[in-house]
């Protein structure tokens, strides 16, 4: 098992600073997801960690050894890692030899190669394709061959750059199952860059949020998605209600926050007078024709200003002195008779809020 540590990694390219001092540790056998929008630097960071590129400054420590600039140490470390790129390429040879390539580079014996390649192909469900020219495979099949090619070397750290980008849902499911089984059964550390937050949540035990070349927050999926540390992370993980306010009262851990002249109750540890943001996930807000139905501490009457169908859900925007965004199922929307201009009651629990400090 291996650990990998990046210290103050900076990468500049043509005058642009792509990574701005990344410090992150990948622990033995963990599944770590790097999430961030397109262009945030995920691929660049993966390439640096996989030792495919040199950083402009900073250090990479693999199992306690600084491998940043020592070419021999880099090759040795790289042979204990593997990477599946966003758009994997296959070599102009059959599937078997594609998968066997890494083993041949390590001068493994023919019998071992045969057995390991067969196992890897079986793991990704491609055992019937071993003699096919790899160039004739579909996108999903190519992705699975690339994963088999990486796994066959039994890496201690597996890097996956957008492993399911451009795949159909069935292929995505298959690839995710393979990744999950690798983490569970082979105890391989997996570092996965993805813009699909739900995928990161499903597969990772820890998540790092990369925004504009910096890791803004690292934590468990629960921490990242329900307790983001900053407004930027909250926006990225889909918390659409970010309400600026000021703490006006405190009773133990129960705060009263003034938001646009209305009082919002929240559970957090802040002092009276602190400027904060109140974060509420849209799915934590319930809607009812009148207040009586709800037992939540926070209940606000307001007017529906917008209804937007999103698949089987309906997005509701309610003006209750501040704008609240929520979602209900389309059938609930029908039952409630929701319509633009109609009065409605929006409520949410004090524990459903998350409070973060507002610095300006």
């Amino acid at each position, binding site marked *: 098992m291996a650990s990998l540590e990046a210290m103050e990694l900076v990468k500049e390219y043509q005058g642009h600073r792509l990574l701005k001092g990344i410090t992150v540790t990948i622990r033995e056998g963990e599944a770590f997801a790097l999430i961030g929008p397109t262009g945030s630097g995920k691929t660049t960071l993966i390439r640096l960690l996989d030792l*495919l590129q040199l950083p402009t400054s900073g250090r990479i420590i693999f199992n306690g050894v600084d491998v940043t600039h020592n070419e021999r140490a880099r090759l040795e470390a*790289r042979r204990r890692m593997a990477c599946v790129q966003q758009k994997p390429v296959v070599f102009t040879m059959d599937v078997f030899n594609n998968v066997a*390539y*890494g083993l041949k580079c*390590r001068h493994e014996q023919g019998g071992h190669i045969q057995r390991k390649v067969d196992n890897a192909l079986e793991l990704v469900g491609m055992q019937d394709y071993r003699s096919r020219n790899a160039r004739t495979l579909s996108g999903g099949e190519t992705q699975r061959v690339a994963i088999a090619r990486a796994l066959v*070397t039994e890496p201690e750290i597996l890097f996956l750059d957008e492993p399911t980008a451009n795949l159909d849902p069935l292929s995505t499911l298959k690839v995710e199952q393979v990744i999950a089984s690798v983490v569970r059964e082979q105890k391989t550390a997996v570092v996965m860059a993805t813009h699909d937050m739900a995928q990161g949540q499903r597969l990772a035990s820890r998540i790092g949020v990369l925004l504009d070349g910096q890791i803004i927050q690292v934590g468990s999926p629960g921490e990242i998605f329900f307790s983001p540390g900053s407004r930027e992370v909250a926006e990225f993980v889909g918390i659409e209600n970010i309400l600026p306010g000021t703490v006006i009262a405190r009773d133990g851990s129960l705060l009263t926050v003034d938001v646009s002249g209305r009082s919002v109750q929240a559970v957090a540890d802040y002092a009276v007078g602190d400027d904060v943001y109140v974060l509420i996930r849209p799915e934590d807000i319930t809607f009812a024709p009148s207040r009586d139905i709800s037992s939540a501490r926070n209940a606000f009457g307001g007017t529906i200003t917008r209804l937007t169908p999103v698949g089987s859900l309906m997005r509701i925007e309610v003006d209750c002195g501040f704008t609240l965004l929520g979602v209900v199922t389309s059938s609930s929307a029908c039952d409630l008779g929701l319509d633009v201009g109609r009065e409605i009651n929006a409520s949410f629990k004090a524990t459903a809020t998350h409070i973060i400090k507002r610095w300006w």
Partner: protein
Amino acid sequence: MTEVWQGFLKALELIITLDPEVMEIAGRSLALAATSCSIAALLCIPLGSFIHFNSFRGKRLIINLTQTLYSVPTVAIGLFVFVFISRASPLGNLGLLFTPAAIVIGQVLLVSPIITGLVISALSGVDRAVIETAVSLGANRFQATALVIREARFAILAALIMGFGRAISEVGLSLMVGGNIRGFTRTITTAISLETSKGEIELAIALGIILIILALAINIILNRLQHREE
């Protein structure tokens, strides 16, 4: 026109009956061109790879110069080689002038720019992700380079075929440094030139047909190889 037709029929007869002189000349041409191309391949594939895989000052200039030399006249190469191997030259005592070795030296010089330039183009045509994938799978520099060359093998093979075509079809160089000596340095092209000037058109046509058949056979082999891989 009748003369040409009769010449064509006579040529077919010479080929079908495996006329010893025709076969000897064709065999020599083939052997010289194949030797030249093999030597050039041994030199130019590593050279082209070195130029492609390394960054250095003047790289673009070298590539441009190489490409310019694609169309260098064969007589210019012939003159250059002649100057170096003639009796009074520094290499004169090696006795290379008017020998098959002189033709091979000239042909190697002639086809080297073509093979080097096309090898560089062939390697440039390989997706950069191939080398990165190889490196990420644990390949060292040599293994990754070998993989890229393997990926470019058909384009490299095409480069060798081009070089072979240029070598077997040149005439000026073989005349100047080979001397067109019967049974020793006479090749298909020099023989065609000589026989035509003598009015022996049948032999010239027969040799011309053999030249075309050789080109066709090589193309068929190349296509077969490509299709088998696909």
